[in-house]
């Protein structure tokens, strides 16, 4: 396998990391039945905060923590608005999207274009793993944040599907009444998971500005990624593994855009730039019931069910709804 290709794959994994983390954060939140629509703004704001604080304190870790804190606060607003004030989660999330984006630009002014030397989270190739053929270079020759994303994928998967708290976590998103009947404090847990998910969104923001593309500039380079992350969660059927798959898929297409232009294939830049968005629509089409069925007819009988189970992506039943069973 030639170097160029390995390098490209490696860059792909790196540049997909923020998407992975953001989508996983949102997965946690939505599995608990809450939608945090503010991602596109939150990512900008937290990215700015991470870089700004890291720049001011000279300590990247502090920057990352600050970003996670901000992400958590935004999530908290959504939680309060939907649980206490019974407001429409989408409405509040959308306003926060715009607000956070503007805040990042306004308060980011002092940090725009500031030196980025030494502003990337610690780069450490993993001793033995990095020497493995192919995968070594592609997956284990990165900065810490990338490994964090791996850890999150498996951690969340294990949490959701192999632990008792995980059962409760999924239950409050599926059928709060049943969770309540089993003594699960539905709304308290919704607070917690919304906030945890939000802080992961913060981590994702940080993984741009002190990870994948260090520094801060307006307009924020990650604009639009928040929406893609939200779509990935749907495409991923709220399952960590599929979510990661989706994230790499989108990142791959982005990398392709640059690569194609440098190749001899004559395609207008504008067309390349539309690809991720077309893919976004296409994936959502794919997971929407009707289309799957039509597509599955092509497959041989045997494979159909397996394919269906893989493609089907039913949102948590109680997603976006309130649970008042406790205010009694």
């Amino acid at each position, binding site marked *: 396998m030639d170097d160029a290709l390995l*390098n490209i794959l490696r860059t792909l994994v790196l540049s997909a990391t923020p998407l992975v983390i953001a989508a996983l954060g949102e997965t946690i939140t939505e599995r608990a039945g809450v939608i945090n629509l503010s991602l596109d703004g939150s990512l900008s704001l937290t990215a700015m905060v991470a870089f700004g604080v890291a720049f001011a304190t000279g300590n990247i870790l502090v920057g990352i923590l600050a970003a996670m804190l901000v992400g958590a606060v935004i999530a908290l607003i959504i939680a309060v608005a939907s649980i206490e004030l019974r407001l429409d989660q989408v409405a509040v999330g959308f306003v926060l999207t715009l607000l956070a984006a503007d805040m990042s630009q306004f308060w980011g002014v002092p940090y725009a274009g500031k*030196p980025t*030397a030494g502003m990337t989270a610690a*780069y450490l190739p993993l001793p033995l793993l990095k020497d493995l053929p192919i995968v070594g270079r592609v997956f284990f020759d990165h900065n810490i944040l990338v490994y964090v994303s791996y850890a999150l994928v498996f951690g969340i998967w294990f949490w959701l599907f192999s632990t008792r708290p995980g059962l409760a976590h999924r239950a409050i998103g599926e059928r709060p009444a049943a969770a309540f009947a089993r003594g699960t404090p539905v709304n308290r847990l919704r607070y917690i998971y919304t906030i945890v998910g939000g802080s992961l969104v913060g981590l994702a923001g940080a993984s741009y500005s002190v990870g994948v593309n260090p520094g801060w500039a307006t307009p924020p380079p990650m604009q639009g990624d928040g929406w893609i992350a939200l779509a990935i969660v749907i495409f991923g059927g709220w399952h960590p593994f599929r979510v990661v798959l989706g994230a790499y898929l989108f990142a791959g297409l982005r990398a392709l*855009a640059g690569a194609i232009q440098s190749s001899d294939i004559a395609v207008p830049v504008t067309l390349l730039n539309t690809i991720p968005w077309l893919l976004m629509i296409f994936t959502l089409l794919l997971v929407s019931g009707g289309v799957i069925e039509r597509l599955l007819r092509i497959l041989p009988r045997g494979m159909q069910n397996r394919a269906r189970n893989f493609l089907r992506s039913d949102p948590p039943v109680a997603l976006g709804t309130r649970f008042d069973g406790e205010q009694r």
Partner: protein
Amino acid sequence: AQDEFVFGMILVGARNDQGWNQAHYEGGEYVIEKLAEAGVTARMIVFENLNPVVNPQATVQDVAASMADEGAQLIFTTSDEFEPATLEAAAQLPDVTFIHTSGSAALETTPADLFPDLFEATERVAPPANYGNLMGEMEHGKAIAGCAAALSTKTGSIGYLGPLINAETRRFVSAAYLGARYCYEKYAGGDPAALKFEVIWIGFWIPTPDTLDPQQVTNTFFDNGADVVISGIDPQDALIVAGQRREQGDDVFAIPYDYEGACDTAPDACLGIPYFHWGPKYLEIAQAVLGDGYVQDWEWTSPDWSDINNPDTTAVGWRNGPALSEGAATNLQAFIDEMIAYQTDPANEGSFFLWEGPLNYQDGTVLAAEGEKVDPLKVWFLPLLLEGIVGDSTLE
């Protein structure tokens, strides 16, 4: 203060972008400082980020009018796309002098005069008398940048991170390529035919959701074997990525653009910086406005060849970056001396001129035959990239 001199500065991006806009902004500060020395108190009112995304409500005309209300007598509109609007504003506010940078409305010649088969002839409307154009001969800076890149590349592959495609950017890419090719052969002892010089256009001066991600593109360059990336866009993404990769042990460099202090972003990866000094010219114009009036002009100002880094005289300059090796630095200086030699007297021995034939367009057609010198205006309106450059010449 009633007798203060007020001038406006309209920027397409942020005043602190470490690039094009900051260069203009500091040009304005230079004017204030110098006028103060001359006993004139001047005030600059700035409008930054005048683009549909950040300021959908604002147009050049409106902002100019507001500035006039604030007492501005002179307004610099500093982005290519401001030109038509600036012309309108100038017509509406005859008492205010408008200087548009990088445009050519004040120039009699139109592209159609030079390339009748490429551009449709439209009879030219003379701009209002209170309108003028200004630009620096950055192609010299770009040539030096290209040379520095050629002297530093080990893989013999150079990437150019292009913004959008127009005559100006084609001019700069071509200049950088010519500098690189020349130095690669003469000083690095390489085969110019073997030198890979590729441009990828992101689609705009700054990254937006509608453009390619410049950091992604820079990574693509490096992943595909380039080890130097020359930036043609305003912000410092190329340098940032190069710096990050150096920290991870990759042996790669970048050359930023526009602003003298740009190297600070990631010094260890910075080979040098071709930059604009708008101050001196701005001062001249301001003084004219203060004195017996500005006379319409289209100015394309060259470096001060006696000292290309003299802050009070040069319009375009170059500074070596921390990452430029000793040897490369000496060779680069030699190359610069060759350019100077030509500028002082074309007849000089061992002098180098950028736009001297044989030069072909990308499509193989001839731009200048052996020994022929290209008409400067043809350079200004350069319709295609030059032969040897990989990359698109037009957006279609």
